[in-house]
């Protein structure tokens, strides 16, 4: 489905990603993890041609993404469901219209829109907010609207950049269940996340990235081992503070 071949993308002196070579199979469910600023969002943006790589080639199915003309980009994006880290909801449209918009751009009929949108809103648990505008929603609710918009067209590929960052554990798990369901229907899922417990419990393939390079690629992996070493250190320091205070 997705093939990165020696891809490098830097922002001036900042490293985005560096020499990344990776392949994600059709129908897979992949977690992309890594510390803040390690290049995860850059990876995602490259797939959607929001950014152009400095070097290397990116393939989506058999499509050479770099070679797409400006006219072909909308088609690429329409065939992919995307949950952006910053939601990117249209501020002038209601929740319903935001989700409907994704269907309108693929020229679905108004009838189909009126039938499917409420279903999806229900699925992510925000059907009661259909007529609200994004700025009238809590962060978690906005995130769920973004998820609804991404999945409404049953895309072959769903890319989610931190889709549970603003959700409480319960809702987060519900969303994960939803994603797993969608994955089982055949959709390839690439999910960027920091949620250690989710990654650990799901036992899916985990690609770990650090400073723009892939440092680990585990089928059935877990979030990462490094933090186990540091946590006691932290608790110890917390202890030191406590002692000082007492």
């Amino acid at each position: 489905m997705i093939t990165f071949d020696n891809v490098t993308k830097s922002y001036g002196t900042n490293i985005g990603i560096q020499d990344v070579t990776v392949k994600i199979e059709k129908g897979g469910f992949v977690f992309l993890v890594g510390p803040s600023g390690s290049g995860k969002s850059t990876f995602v943006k490259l797939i959607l041609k929001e950014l152009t790589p400095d070097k290397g080639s990116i393939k989506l199915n058999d499509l050479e993404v770099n070679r797409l003309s400006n006219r072909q980009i909308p088609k690429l994006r329409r065939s992919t469901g995307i949950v952006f880290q910053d939601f990117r909801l249209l501020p002038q449209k209601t929740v319903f219209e935001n989700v409907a918009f994704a269907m309108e751009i693929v020229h679905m009929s108004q009838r189909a829109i009126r039938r499917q949108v409420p279903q999806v809103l229900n699925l992510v648990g925000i059907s009661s907010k259909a007529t609200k505008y994004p700025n009238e929603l809590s962060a978690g609710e906005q995130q769920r609207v973004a998820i609804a918009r991404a999945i409404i067209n049953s895309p072959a590929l769903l890319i989610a950049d931190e889709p549970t960052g603003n959700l409480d554990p319960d809702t987060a798990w519900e969303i994960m269940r939803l994603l797993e369901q969608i994955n089982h229907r055949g959709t390839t899922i690439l999910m960027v996340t920091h949620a250690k417990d989710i990654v650990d419990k799901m036992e899916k393939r985990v690609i770990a990235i650090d400073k723009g390079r892939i440092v680990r690629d585990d089928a059935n992996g877990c979030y990462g081992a490094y933090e186990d070493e540091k946590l006691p250190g932290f608790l110890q320091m917390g202890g030191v503070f406590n002692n000082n205070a007492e």
Partner: protein
Amino acid sequence: MLNSWKCAFKQAFKQAFRNRAMSVASMFSITAMLLILGLFFILVVNVNMVSETAKKQFDTIQVFLLDETTYEESSVMLADLKRMDGVSEATYQTAKEAMDKWKVKWGDNAYLLDGLEDENPLPNSLIIKVSELEKADATVTRLKTYDGIEDIKYYKDTVDQLLKITGFIQVGAMIVILFLVIVSVIVVSNTIKLTVLAREREISIMKYVGATNWFIRGPFLIEGILIGIVSALVSVGIISFIYYKITELIGPEIFIMLSTTMVPVEFLIIRLVWIFLALGISIGACGSIVSMRRFLDT
């Protein structure tokens, strides 16, 4: 396709309504610029009318005949002149008639001429009226080829001056109107650019979600056109109202002073509606397309 245009229209109306502040702002700017243009249009149309009337008063060429020229010879000239392009009227005037005219003209001072009646120093003459002032020169040139003419009199200096002044006014007005159109386009496209700039994020999100350029442009375009239409109608309304009030107020005085009526309101409205609609729509449409380009091309 039809469906998608219907959709775009609905979107445009919604957008325009939800962006009330912006839409109203753009509308105000376009209306303001059209008002200025309209004002100038009115000035130009009326100045033209006045100058046309003024020109009419200098359309006479006087041809003084030699005393020895017979009536028959002058009749031949007259017939020839009448056939000329640009001559609307040509008549024979005897010395007696000329003197009578002078007397009328002098009014109170006519007694000065009393002594002259018997030995009338005035010659017989031909009075020629030209239809277009610009052709008077050609007529005079032709006249000079005739025999039996003592002198040709027409208000060459006045006419030349008048032609020059009206020419200046016309050229000046064209320059000013051109200038105003350019300024309007700058101001309005700026306004629209700002409107679009303020919605940069909205446009970029649409792109990220996979909307094609025309899908994004559609509603903006229609919104621009709608704003253009509304502005055009509003400004025609305002201009017509103001102009109507002005004609009512000073029209009669103008008539007395310059012996021309002002251009009637209806004449203006009909022309302005079309000019303004064309301007408003093209400004609105071009404005939105041009100012969106930089967001869409990336």
